[in-house]
């Protein structure tokens, strides 16, 4: 399969990223690229260093070594040199968290307005114009609410706009977190296990949502995921990590056939005997009558199979 991204300029280039915690090397000499209008998935067994990569990208960790270059509006930014909170603002990377981190006591709409803090803060002239409710600030606030409404509609949360975020069901909380990330107007959206805890129907909806974001918004998506129906169904590009090293990189089809990936997920001994067997297991999800099984799902790969092994 040919990769159309080869010809394009990457949005994010990671080169020789290494992250050590004392004696533990969580990420070891990792290089990859992510492109605009593409969904790049990072997979790997538990503890492979996926979330660490995200934390390095979004400024929560300072990498021990390596170069993280982000290409925003023709300007090359070095992420490892930016202070954590500036990454969302300057490099325009937004992220979600593995365990949902909402502002649980605030309403859904407030969550989305907080995400637009920086432009609103500027419009309120650091609260001076805001205190006197000047028209400039009022217009900016209306625009912020309109943007929030746009994303609420896209993610099917419009009915719940004035709910307290913590009172939403789990699936809706996950969607709200994605909406909040999108409200920062990112060019790269990093999703840390967005399908975790979702039922198959919600997971299929998530697929459609991510495909729509890629198609319509023109932003890149970087995805950590255990749910293989999501990974294999929608990603353009899969990177497999094991013990902090990259063991495979390619299209879903290439990665699925890669013997080192099977070994990493199943262990050395079983890999030979089990072979494809485990990858067939998820078929039972379809047998239970899940009509929403994503059409793009390659044969033999479904939800969670390799991970639960």
């Amino acid at each position, binding site marked *: 399969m040919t990769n159309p991204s080869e010809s394009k300029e990457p949005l994010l280039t990671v080169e020789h990223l290494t992250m050590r915690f004392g004696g533990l090397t969580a990420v070891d000499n990792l290089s990859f690229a992510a492109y605009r209008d593409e969904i790049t998935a990072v997979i790997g067994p538990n503890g492979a260093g996926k979330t660490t990569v995200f934390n390095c990208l979004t400024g929560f960790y300072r990498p021990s070594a390596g170069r993280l270059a982000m290409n925003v509006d023709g300007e090359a930014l070095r992420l490892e040199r930016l202070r954590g909170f500036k990454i969302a603002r300057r490099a325009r990377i937004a992220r979600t968290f593995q365990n949902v981190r909402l502002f649980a006591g605030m309403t859904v709409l407030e969550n989305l307005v*907080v995400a637009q803090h920086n432009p609103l803060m500027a419009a309120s002239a650091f609260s001076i114009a805001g205190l006197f409710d000047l028209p400039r600030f009022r217009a900016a606030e209306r625009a912020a609410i309109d943007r929030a409404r746009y994303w609420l509609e896209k993610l099917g949360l419009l009915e719940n706009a004035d709910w307290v975020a913590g009172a939403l069901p789990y699936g809706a909380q996950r969607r709200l977190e994605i909406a909040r990330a999108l409200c920062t107007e990112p060019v790269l959206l990093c999703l840390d296990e967005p399908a975790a805890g979702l039922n198959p129907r919600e997971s299929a909806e998530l697929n459609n949502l991510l495909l729509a974001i890629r198609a319509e918004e023109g932003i890149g998506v970087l995805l950590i995921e255990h749910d293989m129906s999501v990974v294999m169904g929608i990603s353009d590009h899969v990177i497999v990590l094991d013990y902090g090293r990259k063991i495979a990189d390619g299209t879903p089809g290439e990665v699925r056939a890669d013997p080192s990936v099977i070994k990493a997920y199943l262990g050395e001994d079983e890999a030979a005997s089990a072979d494809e067997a485990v990858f067939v297991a998820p078929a039972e999800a379809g047998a239970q009558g899940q009509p929403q099984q994503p059409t793009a799902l390659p044969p033999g790969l479904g939800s969670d199979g390799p991970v639960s092994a």
Partner: protein
Amino acid sequence: MAAASGLAVDERTRPPLPWAPLLKDALLAAVIAALLALPLVGLQTYDIGGGALGIATHFDWVAWGAAAVFAGRLALRLLPQFRTGRRGTGPAPISRLTAWAGRQAVPITLAGIALAAALPFLPFSSRYLIDLGTTVLIYVMLGWGLNVVVGLAGLLDLGYVAFYAVGAYTFGLLARDLDFSFWEALPFSGLVAASFGILLGFPVLRLRGDYLAIVTLGFGEIIRIVLLNWASLTGGPNGIGGIPRPSFFGLAFARSAPEGVTTFHQFFGLEFSPDHRVIFLYFVILGMALITNLFTLRIRKLPLGRAWEALREDETACRALGINPTNVKLSAFAIGAMFGGLAGCFFATRQGFISPESFTFIESATILAIVVLGGMGSQMGVVLAAILLVSLPEFGRAFAEFRMLIFGAAMVAVMVWRPRGLIAHREPTVWLGTRRRAARIAP
């Protein structure tokens, strides 16, 4: 019908009460109480003359006390046994009351302000009542100021009294050394206190929860001890006296003014009364407190205020959204401290004398208790809690030495029945729908 008969069946088939463990539990409580009471209540020293002490025993008191504990404990354990099945499914009446109060915030606030403004002119008002009202309003203002830091930004501050002290001493020093009047010194008190807020903010940026509380507690003590020991500047334990009283647009409140100064009663052709100044002070602090409230209510709806609340909810998520936690925290500390400083400036002019004794930890604890009892982040709750906490010890004077006991019991009672504070209702800052379709509040 079916439901009713089902309930009746439940009533009849109620399992027998587990008397043995209940009695055992009550007995244990009584024994512990007796052991504790034996040295505390059972033995009393008295002077037998010649500087020697004798011991009187009151074992009957201990026995009565233990019996009371036994009965009380038994009653406490029995109560839920009789209440099961009878509880309604709806929220408790008090929750409904506070939710209603939250929805009717505007009329209630206006009525409260009208009442506060009319207080000095009501037939039953007295100088004592107005003085008490002034004290309550100082604490309301301090509570509202601390509410910015604790209630909105979620930064537990046990040293808030430091800013109160800084504001008071700023005015005290400016008045003593540079002849500033109250109105001239007021903005400086706010500014200096805000600077101290930022000063405190820097070292505690990375701290949260308990650790933050300890550092702020230390900060409060440092300020007090510096004031106490830097005698050449602050007068040490002797404090600063002769702080000028505020004037009414240049009109002094005095029986006879020095040459060239008009007094308030001369200007308005009134009979001189010392009450004029007391009433004026009351209105000054009422105005200052209301400005604090207006400012806080407005800033809650601004990006800065929302960022404070977001920071309280989840700092990590804030950083991922590009919010600079340093600026947000420092602004909360600075604005909270500013209100503390302004209140301190008023305190100095009202007392006319300040010393480090007025700025002890117990003040910080009282202000924090007002915020927590009132319901974190709730402006109306602060008013209720301030009235309760400041006036309860006053009205309890009849009980002499027991008043602090009653005060403590009232605090425990509030925390048992209203663990999230008197008013736990949070009004959203922005709505998509109309308010009628109001927010679903988390259970």
